């Protein structure tokens, strides 16, 4: 792990005055967010607060009602393979292809379209990184929940995206597996320096993974300055738990 590394001055992704939702049920209201290269931003919030909507807008899967998305200095409106989504759903690998074929599929249609000679090496490397080198020929339905999420990480990091969008990726596995996957993700991010927008409702997960932690509520973001604390340290967890805004956000919502 790299520990405290330099965070570039120019944002890689910028959400400007984003509003989304329906006329009588606004989900996001004039939300602003900047993500800088190689930083991990965790967004916390109870379910229904618009975290997933925020991710879909950041990936251009959903057009905001108002506001704009700027990625690497350009306005974007369509999804691309530089901003890859990792879902909570363990069904996200395409079931009609083996794990290896899933990664090849991503490389072939994504970043290595014109370099078929490098696919094999890249596939081997990304499987190695997540410890699934022996599962290359297995179909997704033959993988356990934790393995499926490792496979999804291998496919995403294999493409070396500029930004990862993660929607509670470890939300549907048991606690020991979740902890394993969290540490795997820390290693992967440290090695690849991938900027990450990580949505979760698990405060401890956010404290473990995030360089910056934001809480999304109806008023927009509340920032928890995690850099003044030590991420992962129990006192930091306690301190954040006691944060009045977060408490209000967690317990007082209708």
């Amino acid at each position: 792990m790299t520990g405290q590394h330099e965070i570039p001055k120019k944002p890689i992704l910028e959400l400007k005055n984003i509003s989304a939702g329906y006329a009588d049920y606004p989900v996001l209201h004039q939300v602003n967010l900047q993500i800088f290269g190689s930083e991990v931003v965790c967004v916390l919030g109870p379910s229904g607060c618009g975290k997933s909507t925020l991710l879909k807008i950041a990936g251009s899967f959903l057009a905001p009602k108002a506001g704009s998305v700027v990625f690497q200095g350009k306005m974007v409106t369509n999804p691309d393979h530089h901003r890859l989504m990792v879902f909570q759903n363990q069904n996200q690998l395409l079931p009609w292809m083996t794990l290896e074929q899933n990664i090849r599929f991503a490389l072939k249609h994504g970043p290595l379209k014109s370099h078929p000679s490098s696919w094999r090496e890249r596939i081997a490397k990304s499987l190695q990184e997540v410890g699934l080198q022996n599962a290359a020929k297995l179909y997704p339905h033959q993988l356990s929940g934790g393995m499926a999420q490792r496979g999804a990480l291998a496919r995403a990091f294999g493409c070396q995206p500029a930004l990862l969008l993660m929607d509670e990726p470890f939300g549907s596995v048991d606690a020991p597996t979740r902890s394993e996957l969290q540490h795997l993700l820390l290693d992967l991010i440290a090695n690849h320096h991938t900027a990450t927008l990580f949505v979760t409702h698990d405060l401890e997960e956010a404290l473990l993974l995030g360089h910056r932690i934001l809480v999304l509520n109806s008023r927009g973001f509340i920032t928890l300055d995690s850099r003044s604390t030590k991420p992962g340290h129990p006192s930091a967890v306690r301190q954040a738990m006691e944060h009045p805004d977060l408490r209000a956000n967690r317990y007082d919502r209708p």
Partner: protein
Amino acid sequence: MKKAGIDPKILGVVLVLLILPAWEAIRIGGSISPLLMPPLVSIGSALLQGLIQGTLLVQIGLSLMYILTGAGIALVLAFFTLWISNLSPAVHHAVGILGALFHPLPGIVLLPIIILWAGIGPSAVLVVIVHSVFWPVLTNLQAGYRSIPETWRMTGQNYELAGWKFLVFIALPATFPYLLAGLRIAWARGWRALISAEMLFGAIAGAGGLGWYIHSRRVFMDSPGLFAGILVIMLIGSLVESMMFSLIERRTIQKWGMSL
């Protein structure tokens, strides 16, 4: 008490072994005319002769060619319709309404109109098959397309698959279980419609096929040949049903863990 597991294969053999002597017993016991119930031996020899001399083989080939051609045309039309019905909700609903109207219509009732429009002969048989295959395949394709999980759609979008690329690389494999289910229904309907149409057109124009074969056996009062034809239709129907489709399922959706 625990139920004894019966192997369906053994059961099948036992069933056939029971039917065959029963047939002979009824035939001899009731001294029924061989024109109504021909002896098994003559049915068997008619079957063998038809296969060896090739008359039956030619008609089998013709019937299979009809149904494959018709199914091929229907499949292309169904994919094309799926594609245009995705262009706008209005087209989608229009196709849905047409499907609701035409899907329940047996192909054979269209025959009188088809004779007027397409004449008699192979093209009329093809129209009947296309009708029988097109609607069940289309309704299943549409149901399958609607049920593609959002994560797969977004994964496709993430790797910049749009238009025909999305259809080929995501939508087609994702809807494959539905396509297979549609094809099973289409086969059952198409095969029946084909034999009926062949019998009818065979009578008028000698269009050929297994239906025509049976029809011509009737004309010559060749009862053993008649039963031989029925046996072949039964065998081909169940071979495709239980062997071809099951084999495809094992090699694809079962292997992928995608069975419906």
